[in-house]
């Protein structure tokens, strides 16, 4: 299991905000942060969460058809 931090990258802030809502509704602690410089992304914010939630977040986004660009674990 990944013990570090992961970020989900989105094409737009609207999608990132939707991701934040979906995660919070499932009790997954997340935080919107500016996209780390070394990661390429389309928009200014991404969603950070603990690596332990990586699979749950990925499954949740797929299940709810939330389009995301990538999930990168640091």
């Amino acid at each position: 299991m990944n013990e570090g931090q992961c970020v989900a990258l989105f094409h737009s802030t609207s999608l990132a905000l939707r991701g934040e809502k979906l995660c919070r509704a499932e009790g997954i602690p997340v935080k919107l942060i500016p996209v780390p410089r070394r990661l390429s992304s389309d928009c200014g914010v991404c969603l950070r969460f603990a690596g332990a939630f990586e699979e749950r977040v990925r499954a949740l986004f797929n299940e709810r058809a939330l389009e995301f660009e990538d999930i990168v674990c640091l």
Partner: protein
Amino acid sequence: MIYLDNAATSFPKPARVVDAMTEFAREIGANPGRSGHRLSVEAGRTIYDAREALASLFKIRDPLRVIFTANATVGLNQALLGLLSAGDRVVTSGMEHNSVMRPLRFLEASGIRVATVPCSSQGLLDPDELRRTLSERTAMVVVNHGSNVNGCIQPVRALGAAAREAGALFLVDAAQTAGCVEIDMAEDNIDLLAFTGHKALYGPQGTGGLVLGGRVPVERMRPIVFGGTGSRSEYETQPDFLPDRYESGTPNTVGIAGLLEGVRFILETGVTAIRRREDALADVLTEGLAEVNGLRIFSGSGGSRLPTVSFTGDTLPPDEIGLRLDEEFGVLCRVGLHCSPAAHNTLGSFPDGTVRLSAGLFTTEEEIRAAIDAVRVIVSEGGAR
């Protein structure tokens, strides 16, 4: 002062709407979706919450299909100019506002065929009449849900069913009805819904939008404005995803903060309760005016009308009645053609227009009675003054 011009814009707004805008301007104020700092995120969240509230109000699942525009007019233009192409046929009613008729007349010049279905003398579009017009292949049907002239409410569900049977997209102008008449986009067969924020949604002027139902071919709907979206900044081409595809440039975030609070107010109050109240006000207004001698009244039929009623006097022109209502009685209304020559033609009040009294949720029966008394005094004095 008695404000009876709610069909132009609702006034007063709930105090919480003004408070929400003040709070946004004081505490948040940043540009949504442009930067990654906390205030920008908070501004983005305000807009996202507004999309969610509107999605809930119009009963659609995906809040990202709520596109914000400056007003209903821009939403209607986006739908019409974005979807119609040369050779297409579009069908509309005889009760439309110029926010629909002017873009349609513009499109006519570029090879789009416009057919208008006549309405009854009360302004109603008969679904069977519409169905007959749709025997010819039609790309879109566009209908004004609630008249800004006589307040009649169209049977959109049946009209939408007719459009759907014919394979046409159904665009509804909900400028007068969003927030005060129940709208369920799926149940009502509505594909595109243009709304304004500043009327029955109790937001400020400069807010509105277009809601896209599931059948709208987004890949075919051309944006009418292109520019910065805060997304895909490395590309010089417009993003293809929603809502960014149709939302270029910095939005009216402070206004949308107010709109969000207005929609929350509606969701808490309940559209059904609002409709019941406004229906009662429509009765008081219409029945009261009917008791005044020397008036010709233009209203929808009981149970399916907004509290928006027009009238003309036998002896005085509308502008003179309007001026005297304002100056002598403090009754604020709107006279003339209400940007709707087509509707006035249908109702038989073109080109002189009418005096329009439009109540809102916060209007009292006493105010309506006082306004009607003022009308009675003015028309009974006739041209004597």
